[in-house]
């Protein structure tokens, strides 16, 4: 499945779970560790990791939709 990812920086609590799960898709900003999105349209090989990242995000700050 091909997906589009978006993040809500206001909800994020900087747990870093997404970075550990899909490090080429998610980063953390320097000042407070809040999520940054490195690529909104990741390759299909990363779909599973990206969906897991959304599931483990404690703040429900990641949205993954089919594109």
């Amino acid at each position, binding site marked *: 499945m091909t997906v589009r990812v978006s993040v809500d920086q206001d909800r994020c*609590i*900087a747990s870093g779970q997404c970075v550990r799960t899909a490090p080429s898709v998610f980063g953390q900003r*320097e000042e*407070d560790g809040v999520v940054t999105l490195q690529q909104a349209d990741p390759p299909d090989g990363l779909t599973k990791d990206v969906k897991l990242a959304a*599931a*483990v995000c*404690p*703040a429900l700050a990641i949205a993954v939709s089919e594109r």
Partner: protein
Amino acid sequence: MAHSLTDIRDRTGTTEREIPQYPMPRAAGCPFDPPPALRDLQAEGPLSKVRLWDGSTPWLVTRYAEQRALLADPRVSADGSHPGYPHVSANLKFRSTRDASFIRMDDPEHARIRRMVTGPFAVRQVESMRPGIQRIVDGLIDDLLAGPKPADLVQAFALPVPSLVICQLLGVPYADHDFFQRNSRLLINRDTPPDQAQAAQTALIGYLDQLVGEKLAHPGDDLLSRLATERVATGELTRHDLASLGRLLLVAGHETTANMIALGTVALLQHPDQLAAVRDSDDPALIAAAVEELLRYLSIVHSGRRRVALADIDVGGQVVRQGDGLVMANDVANRDESVFSGAGELDVHRDARQHVAFGFGVHQCLGQPLARVELQVVYGTLYRRIPTLALAAGLEEIPFKHDGLVYGVYELPVTW
């Protein structure tokens, strides 16, 4: 006493004596498993009433999906000053009203304060601590191996690792490590007389306050320097706030990590095939997976996540009323078969990344990135360096922390 599904679900039919006391005891001989009564309640339904130490009757939530939804629900509050908040004990209720740290606040105030301190815990930041943590672990193992057998792994290794790592995190000068460790041990140890524990806390906060002052003048590459220059110099935090935060990080990250080190060792020694997989692996991914699985399997924070409902909430057909207390038993949620197949088995090859050992929602453990690196280094080093590590007592002789706020062992006699 058997409960039928209708007994539990029918609120008008439930009498006072049918509401079980919480927490419940673990089964003798099964020190790694949650109490059987919790498993029974989980099988019957996602939530039910329990009775606490003060006679109050909050809702106990046992299933993974419902816990996850409630902990992320903005109608659910972590504020301990609400009348219906289910406190763990009289002692913690008292401390909670005096010390309103961000762990007992709701958003937006909680988020405002928490975001002041999340920067230093970013994944990349704690990764840069890995070599220093490796040196700490190797040094303690050197000392252990040079010392007498049997040894108490708790005193010799499990307790010192997190306090030395906190020293590294905060930027405590090496010359002051002994002072810091000595007072940390007094503060953490359950047998320390209250006046000595208080003196240790005062000494530590005084020391940290002085250290913050030094870091303001001469900042280094550590958490205290970073927060001193970014938040104290700007007036967002006072010196005392930062010293208190240092103490909070020490206490929060000390016993938890120490208990995972000791209890994880017991669990692996009891599962030799799992121990061999961890010990003989060169693959950091396997060690990382083992850490997540041990966090899930052991679920050392076994007193439940405490919350209170701010509005009526429907939970699978049952209405939780505004003002009702909620206890999310994340230990038994980590054994939910609908999420973790064969949940009762320790399997380091499992993908356990969805566990809730660190909680869920906006209060999920701040220190978890650091805890992960510490445990990866510990589990990835200890058994490789001491391949013949073994218990020096029977499992039944090891004192488990059944009544502890956090589960673990008080002593762990080992030999090699």
